């Protein structure tokens, strides 16, 4: 498997909307390489024709009736927002 370099880390950080400083990029590069190195042994196992496990519950899509019910109130939804007015959460400009 390819070793992860700093550019890979910056790319993954961009994908996961995570701001990292240069020191963190280097730390994460070393850590991820160390961890992923230990996982190479998985490639030794024959998994031909094996189905992947999503979760061990053996329960699959359960549908419910489309029934109206009480949602969270506007106050409840807004109570934790860092910036808001009476009806909306306020965000920074999206477009320049």
């Amino acid at each position, binding site marked *: *498997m390819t070793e*992860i370099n700093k550019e*890979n*880390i910056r790319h*993954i*950080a961009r*994908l*996961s*909307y*995570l*701001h*990292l400083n240069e020191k*963190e990029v280097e*730390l*994460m590069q070393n*850590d*991820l390489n*160390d*961890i*992923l190195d*230990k*996982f190479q*042994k*998985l*490639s030794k*196992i024959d*998994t031909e024709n*094996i*189905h*992947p*496990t*999503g*979760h*061990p*519950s053996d*329960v699959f*899509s*359960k549908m*419910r009736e489309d029934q109206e019910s009480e949602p*969270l109130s506007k106050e*409840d*939804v807004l*109570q*934790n*927002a*860092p*910036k808001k007015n009476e009806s909306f*959460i306020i*965000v*920074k*400009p*999206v477009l*320049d």
Partner: protein
Amino acid sequence: MLDQGIISSVELTQEFLNRSKKINPEINSVISHTEEHAMKSAKEADITIKDKKSKLLTGIPVMIKDNISTKNIETTAASKILNGYIPPYNATVIKNLLNDKAIICGKTNLDEFAMGSSTENSSFGPVKNPLDLSKVPGGSSGGSAASVAAGQCVFALGSDTGGSIRQPASFCGVIGMKPTYGLVSRFGLIAFGSSLDQIGPLSRNVEDCARILNSISSFDEKDLTSLTRPFNNFGAKIGESIKGLKIGIPKEYLVEGIEPGVRIAYENSLKELEKSGAILEEISLPLSEYALAVYYIIAPAEASSNLSRYDGIKYGNSTDKAINSIEHTFRSRGEGFGDEVKRRILLGTYVLSAGYYDAYYLKAQKVRTLIREEFQKAFDKFDAIITPTTPNVAFNLNEKINSPYQMYLNDVCTIPVNIAGLPAISIPNGLDNNLPTGLHIIGPRMGDQTVIQIAHHYEKISQWKVKPKI
């Protein structure tokens, strides 16, 4: 005692709160005490008890791991990114406990977002093991385990994704159980690895574990992986003889580097169980060796998706250093998450990304199927499988914090259980240099009653008790 009127819930709750607040600065196990809520609940519980309408948990002081949502009570997951977050709803387990009128006394400290094995990754500072203040309590439910061990509550709730109830239970000399995946609703549990997470009890005796599970386990429409348990009482087999029960001893779990004291305690425990008539036989579970790699691909992958909701917009940490919306999210997350959380988000994103998904994530999911099947085949023959809970006892604070992979090795015995969705308990079984060791009893899917049966029997014949230093 409550039913007999020897002590009221108000008196009991006040006693526990007083002790908890007094010793908490030394061990840092509780993030916030919920005194007002607790005393109000205790008064109501006393009325219920007087009216003879009480349930088993009525009036009993409990601590809750701070990744379980409690309505109108701050819930932080020990992360800066959820600083000040007040859930507008209760987790289903909380709803169930409140229905039984248990008394919620506080929210316990944890590794941030339940990611860790030592409770050193908390934005509120580390928790110290009440049995030895220079040692970690284990993690991620270290606060819950420590609070039970130190007498800050009668029992606590924790969550277990790779061993996060069982390992700290072992390190702190208490009992901790993870039920069969699906038996306890995850609604309201701050999600980490959704296919692995389960909420469970930490307590001072096995019978309490069963009682707590009876209360918190329920089918829940709001959790798509929720199951109705095929039995009513988790403790129904308590007191039944273990004579004739077949117990598998997997050689792969006596890992390289296991501490001699842990090994000796384990072997002694097996001898005790054999004397009681259990039939022990060595088995081989060769795929368990790959469970750590499978876990550290699947759990971070799921975490990277689950934690994408923390954007600094709807709740939690919001940076003041950004000029546009995208930068705002980048920086809020960068400032709000600790190193271990970032590490796992990055790892998870990497294994899910184009070009790597098949080799890592899909491969891990397939190996997961094989591990599950290997356990299923073993349980065709055996009633339970028993291993040490961890290869070592509680280690020093700061000893492993800079070596992520060394930290991950703590969970090598507990992780396979979450991969396969099985029930398992950790129960104290000895001392190694005055620190407790743990016996790990694993059952087949839905075999929670048998796990509790064997644990209760072992508890009766062994009587391991360790006193806290505070």
